[in-house]
């Protein structure tokens, strides 16, 4: 917080006293002022971005979950599919975004697809790695108890993957916002991305930065939500921090 404050202060001083034009580098105070003046337009454009982010992310999450299970049950699939997914991650978003818009139009669809494209693979890797992290002895014990593969998956592999899942979720949710904005940048009726593009073309860097501020706030909020979700879903994580009970002769 302090570092962000100092940075903003330095920026403010430089923009005010260096004589640089506000159409080149507006001071933070001006950005904030303009953001307030244009708040209706900003909110209006943030809503489609949020919608694209959440729907796209939900899609990619479902797909990653389904595929991670498939890959966990049929190991050879992993070697067949992973190269394709890895290649999908090397596609430059700059090149692919306009193409997706060209193919699927200016609606919600291309945004959802791009968000899914950037978030699917990190989530899939996190889940698959999480299943692998299951303690081997827990698996052996469950099988000795008579549990089949499906029971072992539900009772051991899935819960073991939770920390990995949430680590992936935290990273992916930030990618998701960037992916949505990129898709809008390539073409949209409304959205933070197209708002930034228009502001830039109108020589209004203050409004570009205001939109950047909104997207940053959006990303932080979503990030905070994943942290909160993890706390609720994994109560034993916090319990682990407390002192172990039972000292003395019983140990």
């Amino acid at each position, binding site marked *: 917080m302090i570092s962000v404050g100092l940075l903003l202060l330095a920026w403010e001083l430089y923009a005010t006293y260096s004589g640089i034009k506000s159409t080149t580098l507006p001071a933070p105070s001006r950005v904030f002022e303009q953001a307030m003046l244009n708040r209706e337009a900003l909110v209006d454009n943030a809503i489609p971005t949020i919608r694209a982010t959440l729907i796209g992310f939900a899609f990619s999450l479902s797909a990653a979950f389904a595929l991670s299970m498939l890959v966990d049950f049929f190991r050879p699939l992993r070697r067949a599919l992973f190269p394709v997914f890895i290649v999908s991650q090397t596609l430059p978003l700059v090149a692919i975004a306009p193409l997706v818009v060209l193919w699927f139009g200016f609606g919600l669809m291309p945004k959802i697809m791009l968000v899914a494209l950037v978030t699917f693979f990190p989530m899939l890797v996190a889940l698959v790695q999480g299943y692998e992290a299951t303690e081997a002895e827990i698996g052996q014990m469950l099988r000795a108890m008579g549990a089949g593969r499906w029971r072992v998956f539900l*009772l051991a592999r899935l819960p073991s993957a939770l920390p990995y899942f949430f680590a992936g979720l935290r990273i992916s949710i930030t990618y998701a916002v960037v992916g949505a904005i990129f898709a809008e940048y390539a073409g949209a009726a409304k959205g933070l991305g197209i708002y930034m593009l228009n502001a830039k073309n109108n020589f209004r860097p203050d409004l570009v930065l205001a939109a950047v501020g909104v997207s940053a706030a959006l990303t932080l909020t979503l990030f905070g939500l994943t942290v909160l979700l993890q706390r609720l879903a994994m109560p034993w994580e916090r319990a682990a921090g407390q002192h172990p009970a039972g000292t003395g002769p019983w*140990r």
Partner: protein
Amino acid sequence: MSRLELRHVRKAFGRLDVLADISLSVGAGEFVSMLGPSGAGKSTLFQLLTGAQHGEGEMFFDGTPLDDHGRHFAFMPQRDALMPWRRILDNTTLGLEVQGIRRKAARARVAPLFAEFGLAGFERHFPAQLSGGMRQRAALLRTVVQERDMLLLDEPFGALDALTRTAMQRWLEQMWRRHRWTALLITHDVREAVFLSDRIYVLSARPACIVREIKVPLPRPRSLGGADALQTSAIEAEILDILLNPEPNPHSSKGHDHD
């Protein structure tokens, strides 16, 4: 009448012979140990028994051949293998749940045993909140409530500090006297084996075969000092001598030559 009987059991992973020739028996209500150096393949034997691996040789339980679905054993792995995300109560009911018993009924069956296992008041705790000794007792509770014919204990106290381990051995001996479980214990701790067992099979280094069967005629309850101390240390010395001055392993040369 022996419950578990193994005849000439062998197991190799690829070209690596792990178990060369294991023949042993465990009688009803008998506490038997398999004692051998680390990495001798003791745990592999448990994997054969629980059906996780398949080997050669014959395995019988109550006179009938062991197959994969013959669920005779309750297995306690080396580390406690408690699930960090389950509370202690739900960890101990795990085996019952897998057997298809409803959670509520399973809890009702486990709950009265918490006091005996020194875990009363910790039902709602997570494993990470418990000490090593308590975790091992929870793991043993999870194992015995399955009410299988026989317990397989794989170095259950190996990860504990020396003092806790001794306390746990005394506690287990006391529990065994009360319940008379049929049990097979894997360990590399000579004192532990002598303190707990009726009989001990001493294993060679890999590929493992049984080099000696030793009866432990010491009276129960076992004690660490007292009248039996001399006899105890004599047995311990005998076993240590076997382990530290091994005769040439007849199987180890065979393992390398026959290819």
